[in-house]
């Protein structure tokens, strides 16, 4: 079993870098995916799957977002891709950005996913989907086998479906056939009829689950708890990405605590045995 270690070293100074929107791709009714180019063509961010960046719109707000993708062209310019679910004033302002508009980014921060084995099950619920794409792409590029379950309230709320599907076709990993994408919607308008949790449950109950080397999940905490419990039952290694209200993003202020860990500094990705212990600490 191979284990691909992915950790980054934090830079000393973390000022914002200015990016411009290069391309804006609507994600149904859920939000948008933005391709962003670094205005000063600085060195590419070394981003591990599952890490996040802090996105700032001056005079408005700053919040963490998973890095969906990063690409470096022949000239060393890099494109950073973020997917924004419109859920409040700040994310709506981000969704309203047009090509050429600027936004400010610092990071990346936090720990990412560690690929374990070569057969992977990825479960994304709602905007949690964004956290998993770069992982899926990394695994596909290594020639691994993937099952990806994407859940949302309805078909129009599903995000990044085509991008995940392209991993098995003529996308970034041309001709790679071993990526199966399964959908689930609360209203049955696409794929499995049921919640992301229900879809996840269906997947973990299926024979595929016990035969996968590792599980990765991001989405509502109720879904993550169910995934962790099932993974523990099947003895399959599992990592989940947690979301908490975050302030500094630097591991300083302590706002995003979960037991004796900080989501921004120790996480957002945790192994299931770790996160299960953290949930128990919080319940005390």
């Amino acid at each position, binding site marked *: 079993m191979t284990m691909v270690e992915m950790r980054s070293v*934090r830079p*000393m*100074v*973390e*000022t*914002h870098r*200015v990016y411009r929107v290069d391309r804006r791709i609507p994600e149904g009714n859920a939000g948008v995916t933005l391709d962003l180019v670094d*205005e000063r063509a600085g060195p590419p961010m070394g981003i591990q799957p599952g890490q996040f960046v*802090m996105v*700032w719109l*001056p*005079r408005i*707000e*700053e*919040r963490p977002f998973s890095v969906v993708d990063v690409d470096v062209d022949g000239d060393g310019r890099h494109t950073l891709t973020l997917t924004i679910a419109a859920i409040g004033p700040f994310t709506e302002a981000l969704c309203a950005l047009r090509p050429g508009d*600027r936004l*400010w980014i610092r990071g990346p921060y936090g720990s990412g996913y560690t690929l374990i084995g070569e057969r992977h099950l990825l479960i994304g619920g709602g905007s949690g989907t964004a956290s998993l794409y770069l992982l899926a792409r990394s695994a596909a590029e290594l020639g691994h086998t993937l099952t990806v379950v994407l859940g949302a309230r309805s078909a129009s709320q599903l995000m990044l479906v085509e991008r995940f599907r392209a991993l098995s076709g003529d996308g970034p990993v041309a001709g790679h056939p071993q990526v199966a994408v399964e959908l689930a919607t609360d209203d049955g308008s696409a794929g499995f009829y049921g919640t992301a949790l229900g879809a996840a449950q269906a997947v973990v109950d299926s024979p595929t689950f016990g035969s996968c080397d590792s599980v990765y999940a991001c989405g509502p905490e109720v879904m993550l708890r169910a995934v962790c419990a099932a993974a523990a039952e099947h003895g399959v290694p599992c990592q989940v990405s947690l979301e908490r209200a975050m*302030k*500094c*993003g*630097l*591991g*300083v*202020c*302590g*706002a995003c*605590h*979960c*037991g*004796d*860990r*900080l989501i921004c*500094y120790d996480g957002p990705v945790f192994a299931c045995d770790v996160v299960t212990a953290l949930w128990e*600490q919080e319940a*005390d």
Partner: protein
Amino acid sequence: MIDLAVELCGVRLRNPLVLASGIWGSNAGMLVRAARDGAGAVTAKSCSLDARIGHPNPTVLAWEGGLINAVGLSNPGAAAQAEMLMQAKRELSEFGVALIASVFGDTPEGFAAAVQHIVAAEPDLIELNVSCPNVESEFGRPFAFDPDATAEATRGVRQIWGGPLLVKLSPNAPNLVDVARAAVDTGADGLTAVNTLGPGMIIDVHAGCPVLSNRVGGVSGQALLPIAVRCVYELAAAVDVPIIGTGGVSRGSDAMQMIMAGATAVGLGSALYREGSTVFGRIADELVALMEMEGYADLSFRGCAHRMPCRESR
């Protein structure tokens, strides 16, 4: 065998390194983690009588000289804080690490009203934060510039808390020593020096506006160290109570400077940025190595910078 143990206002600490208020200390789990990783005492995040949300992001930035922050004293209110402190106290007893509760108010009565809740948690010490620079516009001039207001806040709390009481001072106060004397004369058992400097401002030149949502914030880290050392030195010369020297300490030699200036204990805050609570072990190791090099068996060199000659040359 080097002995790092100190006594702070009657409380024995296994080493002089203290987790400063406002870093990590929002819940019991993080306080215990700092203790497990080697802190001699841990300070919880400041609380007020009523809950505060704090400022919107951006709230903390890393810059070349350290950090600048305007978190805005977000806290769950004194009643909820007391519950958290009770849990922390219970869990910290296993490590023999002292718990310091930090309290602030917008009036002298506000300090006492918050402390009224906190006493139920029986922290080892209570620290009055009269010096946060991030809330001036809301509360007017910080208490830490005003000896009378500091005295009033200290006196009010002294009436309801019999345990060790610290007052945390501002490096911005031009009359630092007067404020310290006012605190000590009205019942403070010790001082914490200092809070963040400023406020300062960082402008993003591309955005053309301040980065912090609060526009200004307290400056900490490296940039603060020499100012904090000078403040501790002045205070140690003027008042005869223990001092927690805090401000920009990130190495064993920084901690040694604080102790030589007269500090009994040494606070660590911004230093947790980048390396987390493992910083306690590293700084303790560096301090021990320096003490061995200089031939000190314990921390009795405290305040040596005040003596002439500072130490005998060998």
